[in-house]
């Protein structure tokens, strides 16, 4: 699959999943079933919430990568300051690395908590 198509589908399908997961959580909360036992023992909840955190990080990364390649480029930073635009690639890569690291950290941290 082409990268453009892959990213487009990833954004849309993950957003649909968020909506469905939100509905699932809303249903549990309104029916009074939300509890520590649900989070720690319910296999279905563990799988669905693990998928949620993974999709959320992927969805966020695509969005942030789009923002970075729009606003953190030599051209756009040059509107603010010419000397700053020299470091545009470094700034954008740092921005992307930070969010990749943060996303990876969040996923690992969440999976360790929920599955250990």
């Amino acid at each position, binding site marked *: 699959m*082409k*990268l*453009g*198509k892959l*990213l*487009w*589908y990833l954004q849309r399908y993950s957003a649909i999943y968020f909506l469905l997961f939100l509905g699932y959580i809303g249903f549990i909360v309104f029916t009074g079933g939300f509890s520590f036992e649900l989070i720690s023992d319910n296999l279905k909840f563990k799988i669905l919430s693990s998928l949620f955190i993974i999709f959320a990080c992927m969805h966020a990364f695509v969005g942030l990568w*789009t923002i970075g*390649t*729009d*606003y953190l*480029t030599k*051209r*756009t930073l040059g509107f603010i300051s010419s000397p700053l635009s020299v470091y545009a690639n470094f700034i954008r890569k740092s921005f992307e690395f930070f969010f990749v690291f943060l996303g990876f950290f969040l996923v690992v941290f969440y999976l360790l908590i929920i599955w250990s």
Partner: protein
Amino acid sequence: MIDVNIYRYNPETDKFPYTQTYTIKKPEKDIMLLELLNILKEQDSSISYRRSCREGVCGSDGMNINGKNGLACITPISQAIKKNKIELRPLPGLPVIRDLVVDMTEFYAQYDKIKPFLQNETQPPAQERLQSPADRDKLDGLYECILCACCSTSCPSFWWNPDKFVGPAALLQAYRFIADSRDTKTAERLEGLSDPFSVYRCHGIMNCVNVCPKDLNPNHAIGEIKSMLLSNKKKENIIVSDGLG
């Protein structure tokens, strides 16, 4: 009297661009903005702008009129005046050569990228490649583009990535050849647009539709290209659209 505020910049003499205000008696007739500029140019011959056909066909005099891109030659001053003022600025996002004249190299580079010519490797017939009236109708709303750049220069995605995002004008023309029953390079054309930037950077803001002086709908064409890229929609399944904004 009306105030005409014009963006001025001469790289040979000015360090920074500035706005110059010309106060002029309001013409009795509702003339076009280009005529008003011609009158002002008689007062100050240093004002620079492009123009040619003066009837909305050549696309030379695209400019930003009171914050909205348009063609000066087909914009009546009654439509342009806001509180007795007219603000004229160059098309946004492109480098300014002088006053209202912009460097359109990046715009034409994107147009060049989509190979804006019919490609068909089959043996040409004796006279011409024929097309059914139904297939010809599919090109309505596409071929009329005059490449004035009003749409592409009103698009934020094109402002940020003019070297990567093809832009609404060139994408409208890309679709014009994708939809053409005589063109046989549909797969190659779509392949050339399949990266994350060329088409997918269109977020459907629809500034292009809002400003097109020919009332075309580049957003519809981009949507059709996306459909073909995402769902493998076949060329034969393209339906006739009014193509208008």
